[in-house]
């Protein structure tokens, strides 16, 4: 202990705010002092720990290879090249003769599809719900509270089964599908929405688009400078958006529409054209968005409430309108508090998409379990599944741990 104190005195105190030192002097490499019982103990404990882990691991590994041998299998990853032999009800191009590896790719694409749109919808629902929970209107507040409390306190699997069994499958058959303005149709075979496709000769429109973007960016900076010079609060993006819309509308008049709409039309047995969303996808998307949206609403509410009340009072005292106070002062500060739990909610949504196995949507986990049953290779398949989910979660965990270290209570 004594040489630590001498070292510290030589350094002139610890580095950090107020010390006058911003960089810690590089410490000499720690030498193992063989006469120090503490060091010996530490090494011995770690060696023993490793030995236990290795022994347990070897025991399990031996049992595993024996069990696999009795089934006539070995532990390998060659099954990825084997023919899959099972069909997948939706997704990118795939047929029975494709490999298991290809099936996994289809599953990953399906997972990404539902997770992406789930995150978008959940964020929108969560933002609206969080703001509604803080509304000055009692009725809106009550409705938002009911929504959040109902969807947070029931299991997600139950909600998914409810959406699937009690809502989607109870919709009318295709012939009597629910008709929304002749554009969107809901039936028990899924949802049919119009599909937008770009026209063939898009060249002229591309130029117009780039020109419109350039002009709106210029307008943005012009308006921002104008507001700064006049010392007024405001949103330059409003002018920028307006100019963009006006220019695009002008292009519409001059060049015609850049997109064609493919509407679903009822033929003899089914709808033709348009985009068909399967009942499984619709139920999963609705269930995940509603469930995660409730949690995000609570996160948003907590973030906004955590901003000091003095901020609102000061902004109002400066003469800002309530709308400006909310969106120029409160929400930017609230975002700092909202982002970490928001990220973990997104991760939860990605992991909860695996519950699609109960509904029959062919996402990553569902296809993984089918592969497991068909090939008999439970452990390698599991390793692939876990690797896919982990590569998503680990990246975010690394970032959050770095952030947590920066926020930790530094003595």
């Amino acid at each position, binding site marked *: 202990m004594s040489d630590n104190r001498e070292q510290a005195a030589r350094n002139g105190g610890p580095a950090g705010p107020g010390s006058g030192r911003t960089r810690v002097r590089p410490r000499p490499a720690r030498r193992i002092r063989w006469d120090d019982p503490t060091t010996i103990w530490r090494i011995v404990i770690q060696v023993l*720990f490793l030995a236990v*882990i290795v022994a347990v691991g070897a025991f399990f590994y031996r049992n595993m290879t024996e069990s696999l041998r009795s089934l006539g299998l070995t532990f390998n990853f060659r099954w990825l090249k084997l023919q899959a032999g099972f069909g997948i009800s939706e997704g990118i191009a795939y047929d029975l003769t494709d490999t298991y590896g290809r099936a996994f790719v289809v599953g990953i694409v399906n997972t990404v599809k539902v997770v992406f749109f789930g995150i978008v919808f959940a964020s929108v629902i969560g933002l609206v719900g969080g703001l509604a929970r803080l*509304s*000055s209107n009692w009725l809106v507040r009550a409705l938002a509270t009911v929504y959040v409390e109902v969807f947070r306190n029931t299991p997600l699997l139950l909600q998914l089964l409810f959406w699937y069994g009690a809502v989607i499958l109870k919709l009318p058959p295709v012939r009597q599908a629910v008709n929304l303005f002749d554009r969107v149709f809901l039936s028990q075979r899924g949802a049919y929405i119009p599909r937008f496709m770009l026209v063939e000769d898009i060249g002229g429109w591309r130029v117009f688009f780039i020109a419109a973007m350039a002009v709106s960016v210029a307008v943005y900076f012009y308006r921002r400078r104008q507001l700064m010079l006049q010392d007024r609060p405001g949103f330059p993006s409003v002018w920028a958006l307006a100019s963009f819309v006006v220019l695009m509308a002008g292009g519409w008049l001059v060049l015609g529409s850049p997109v064609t709409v493919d509407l679903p039309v009822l033929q003899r047995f089914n709808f033709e054209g348009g985009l068909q969303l399967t009942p499984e996808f619709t139920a999963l998307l609705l269930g995940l968005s509603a469930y995660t949206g409730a949690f995000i609403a609570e996160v948003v509410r907590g973030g906004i409430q955590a901003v000091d009340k003095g901020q609102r009072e000061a902004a109002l005292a400066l003469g800002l309108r309530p709308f400006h106070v909310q969106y120029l002062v409160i929400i930017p500060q609230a975002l700092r508090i909202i982002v970490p739990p928001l990220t973990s909610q997104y991760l939860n949504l990605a992991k909860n998409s695996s519950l699609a196995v109960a509904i029959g949507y062919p996402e990553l*986990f569902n296809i993984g379990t089918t592969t497991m049953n068909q090939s008999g290779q*439970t452990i390698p398949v599991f390793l692939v599944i876990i690797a896919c*989910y982990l590569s998503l*979660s680990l990246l975010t965990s690394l970032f959050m741990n770095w952030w947590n270290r920066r926020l930790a209570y530094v003595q």
Partner: protein
Amino acid sequence: MRVRPKDPWPRRTVDWLVKNLFSSWFNTLLTLVSLWVIYFTVTRVWRWATETAVWAVIPANFQLFLVGVYPRDQLWRFHVILGVFAVLTALSVAAALNRDFGRKAMRWLVTPWLLFLPGSMFLLWGLPGSETLPHVQTSSWGGLTLTLVLAAVGIAGSLPIGILLALGRRSSLPVISVFSTFFIETVRGTPLVAIIFMAHLMVPIFLPGVTIDRVIRAMIGLTLFTSAYMAENVRGGLQSIPKGQYEAAQALGMSPALTMILVILPQALRSVLPSIVGQFISLFKDTSLVAIIGLMDLLGIARSITANPAWAGLQAETFLFIAIIYWIFCFALSYGSQRLERMLGLERPS
């Protein structure tokens, strides 16, 4: 001290209505839209509930929902467990409210509460070969009982493992900290369904020759999963303890182990008690996932009832019923957690 007398009744209501519902044109619009939404949903739901819904499915299967396929002649065990629970709760409430003997009484009550969970599980399990307490297989446990048992065992098992993992992660021994971090991050990055599936399929592979009960496999999966999240919660609590506590304990001559047990952990656990209760609520909801491996918990029972041809197509009624049961438990727990936070003085200043 009231500054001015309250307005007479009609005026007060009108004032409240104007302030809360009609204060601006936008607010008025919101109110009208909300009223329309409420009217729309309530009339539709009411019409469904009173006309097309078949509610007979619930009383007909009530016992299934609560105890699964437990043998009928052994149901007295549940009455015993409920009775003991009621007595313990009444005594605890009385002790909490009593200022004179409350403290001592609470200390006496700790042991019975700790023995309650293993005792009731043993009672339900029975003694193999016995006449008065015949063995009941866990495959017969089901419904709300199985859900509660899974949740209780999950949280009880994950707490010590989670504390060990959190301490391991903060350890200065690199081997242990790397291993703990690796375990925690791997388990946290995997969906719970995958872990339950893994436990279900791989426990027989890793331990051949020993038939492990399906319920125990599910318990292992749930406990492993929850302990990783618990480790993160406890780590947050440990991080918030000021270094002065460690130094003071060291100055008093306490060994590191004693410091941890007597000084640090009590403070850390107290500060993250709300998170632990929150974890329990999540675990309670997540026990429904064991329905995917075929266990007959509350959700599994509901699924098998709707698969029964006699009650086909009644998903809405059954699922609504168990949703209400789940909701009651979870809401009660979260309300209790808020009260606990207030009692411990941990409430964030609003």
